[in-house]
């Protein structure tokens, strides 16, 4: 078991290496650089190329790419993610100040989405091809299709403006978390309910389910005790993926609700072409994404006895 986990973790290294190279090159290919942005153009006020160059020199942006890359990677191996050019704080501090917001949103969104999604999926499969199924599936189709920023706006309009019961800005109290978590949760319902439904249908149509029914076991017991347990495995994957992607920053939702999470930080960094901040944040995010996925894989071994880890 330990060996398996270790091997999985070792497999992360090439993935992260590739991510680091791609993101490093990508931020430098897009037009613009942090120094011209820092010095900026304001109502026609320019700044001389010499001034910009002196500043680039100071941040080591004139060095060959390979030197810059190695400096960054060496720093990471020494536990130094670098310093943001825009905020002049270390990126570790920035992420540390923000990660808990993103984690709250990710956990909240996943829990709410899984709870409602699984219930919806079970209902749909129980009423297969009847009105109940169709209603639930239409709703989940809508949930999948509506973009999160639009949903966020609708919720904001209704709960903040129309009813006036919830705040829409920031994350200072638990009441602030309700709407963003609801937005993320509703967005997750679609995928999770569909996975649950198809997986449940697979199991319900199996011979052993029919046999159990023939033995006179009640339908409710079959669905909850037998079918659901077996159908849950693919659902776990769906939930794990969802959690991983939410952890990687629910950027839209964070931006609209003005939550100082990782997603907002990444958007600001990209707008400011803050090379060190973009690179290190993307690396940390991909790291958490693959770790969550690995964790879900490992969890498989516990949930599904057929997947015995050797």
């Amino acid at each position, binding site marked *: 078991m330990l060996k398996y986990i270790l091997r999985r973790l070792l497999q992360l290294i090439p993935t992260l290496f590739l991510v680091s190279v791609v993101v490093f090159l990508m931020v430098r290919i897009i037009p613009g650089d942090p120094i011209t942005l820092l010095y900026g153009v304001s109502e026609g006020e320019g700044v*001389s190329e010499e001034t910009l160059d002196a500043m680039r020199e100071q941040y080591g942006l004139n060095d060959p790419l390979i030197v810059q890359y190695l400096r960054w990677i060496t720093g990471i191996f020494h536990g130094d993610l670098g310093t943001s050019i825009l905020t002049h704080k270390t990126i570790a501090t920035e992420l540390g100040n923000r990660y808990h917001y993103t984690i709250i949103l990710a956990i909240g969104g996943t829990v709410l989405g899984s709870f409602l999604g699984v219930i919806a999926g079970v209902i749909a499969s129980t009423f297969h091809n009847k009105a109940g199924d169709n209603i639930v599936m239409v709703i989940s189709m809508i949930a999948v299709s509506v973009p999160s920023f639009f949903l966020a706006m609708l919720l904001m309009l209704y709960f903040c403006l129309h009813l006036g019961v919830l705040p829409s800005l920031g994350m200072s109290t638990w009441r602030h978390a309700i709407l963003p978590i609801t937005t993320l949760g509703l967005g997750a319902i679609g995928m999770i309910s569909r996975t649950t439904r198809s997986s449940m249908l697979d199991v319900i149509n199996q011979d052993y389910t029919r046999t159990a029914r023939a033995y006179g076991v009640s339908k409710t017991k079959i669905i909850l005790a037998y079918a659901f347990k077996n159908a849950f495995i693919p659902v776990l994957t769906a939930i794990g993926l969802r959690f991983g992607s939410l952890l990687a920053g629910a950027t839209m939702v964070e931006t609209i609700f003005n939550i100082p999470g990782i997603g907002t930080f990444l958007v600001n960094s990209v707008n400011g072409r803050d090379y060190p901040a973009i690179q290190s944040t993307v690396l940390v995010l991909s790291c958490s994404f693959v770790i969550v996925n690995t964790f879900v894989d490992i969890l498989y071994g516990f949930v599904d006895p057929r997947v015995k880890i050797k």
Partner: protein
Amino acid sequence: MKRLVSTMLIAFLAVAFVFAGGGKEKSSAPLPEFKDTITIATGSDQNYMDGHMNVTNDVYLRAVYSQLVRRGLDGNIEGDLAESWSVGDDGVTWTFNLRHGVKFHNGKELTSADVVASYRRLLDNPSIRYSTLVSGYIKDVYAVDDYTVCLVTTEQIASLLANLTHRSNLILDADYIEKYGMELGLTAESVNGTGPYRLAYWDKDQEMVFEAFEDYFRGEVPTKKIDILIVSDANARLIALETGQVDISIVNTSEIPRLQQTPGIQVKMYESIASQGLQFNCANEYMKDPRVRQAISYAIDRQLIIDTLYSDIGEKVCTSPVNPNVWGYNDFGVIQQDQEKARALLAEAGYPDGFEISIMLYPNYNKSTETCEMIVAMLAEVGIRATIEVVDNAGFNASMGSRTYPGERFPWAMFFMGFGAGTADCDEGLRRIWTTSPDGNNNNNYGWYSNAEVDRLLEEAKAELDEEKRLDLYRQAEQILFIDDPAAIFTNDRYSIWTMSDKVEGFEVNVNNAIFWDNLRCRN
């Protein structure tokens, strides 16, 4: 099963309702008449809280800092840290007498040493953003005694006092300059000024908190705390204002007509020093020819553009290359569309069938996308086939930052641009933007515009102390820039627009859109 599901749903809804209603607390104590904290939502953060480096805007800088002289609410220049001033017989030595007893936020008293250190930082350090700008008119600075400072200008400068109102002249603490160097103004700790508020907290791109400074030399301001939230999403700022989560907000101008009708909301519009329009890249093979630029100028129906796009906020068509609030402005009326003349000029220039060009658009300028689209359609009517290329802020800055003539990194024939005179004087509004520097590489002359007569007139006006003569020199230069050898299609003069709760009182900004905090309050 059904019961289980419905129980769960009911439980969820019940929890949601409790959560939703939970925050409304009823208090029996009477509220004070005015709020302690005013919350402002704005779309973007300041790049630096240091006037020497700030390129964002003037809005919040003067909450924290003061300068020798400032642009008052009436548009006139008034003493700020300087009580009085005089110019010597040589015309280049200006003496400023400082107020006594002005305190920095950390309790230190302001003396001439701080003023000298602030200007020395600009003059001696080319890495400072406005170093070139300020050393363009100031040669030397020295202290006569603790409360007297002399500025020596490079030559006779007619607009010196106006120049000193620019944000680059905000006075820093000499000790902080020493201590923080280039890091000054990037964190709350590194900021120490003499303004009405101290910067108590700053989380970049999220929030900025100002706390009233008890020892402010004009007397403590009425509102104890200002909380500035950076909310990048315009709809979120709008909802925050309408729900009362923020007291003051900057919203999209398309919402203005509706907000003007919304109870509880007031919309305020202020005259500014800014205009916007489509600037020519005179290094471009077609735009080199003044006849082509004139043809484009006559092909555009400016009145139609402004009536269509800006009438809801009342902005007007440009009648000069500078905004009417800039000293030196002369009214040339609206340039009328004349397609016949445009076609004739194109034919004369050798392009009877027109040509193809690309326009660069950074869409953050208000309605610049719509303006460009209308202009493209109008150009098509005289045979010029134009396409629009949209860039983001970083791409825009990078293109503008590359000042290597003739601009290999600058392939566009025209680009959307804002024009402003931070000092509200034509020396800044015209000479800085449109003159040719001796090396042909004026950092502010983005379109490589060059006209020898304009250069001569503007240089002469710079040193002309007789106001009437100076105004006439500007009139001649504006005639060339606006009509004869056009430098841009100047479309509209801009307003500074603020939306706020109708409980806000005493909100005031000057032509630079800098907030004056002295009377700002908000009723509970």
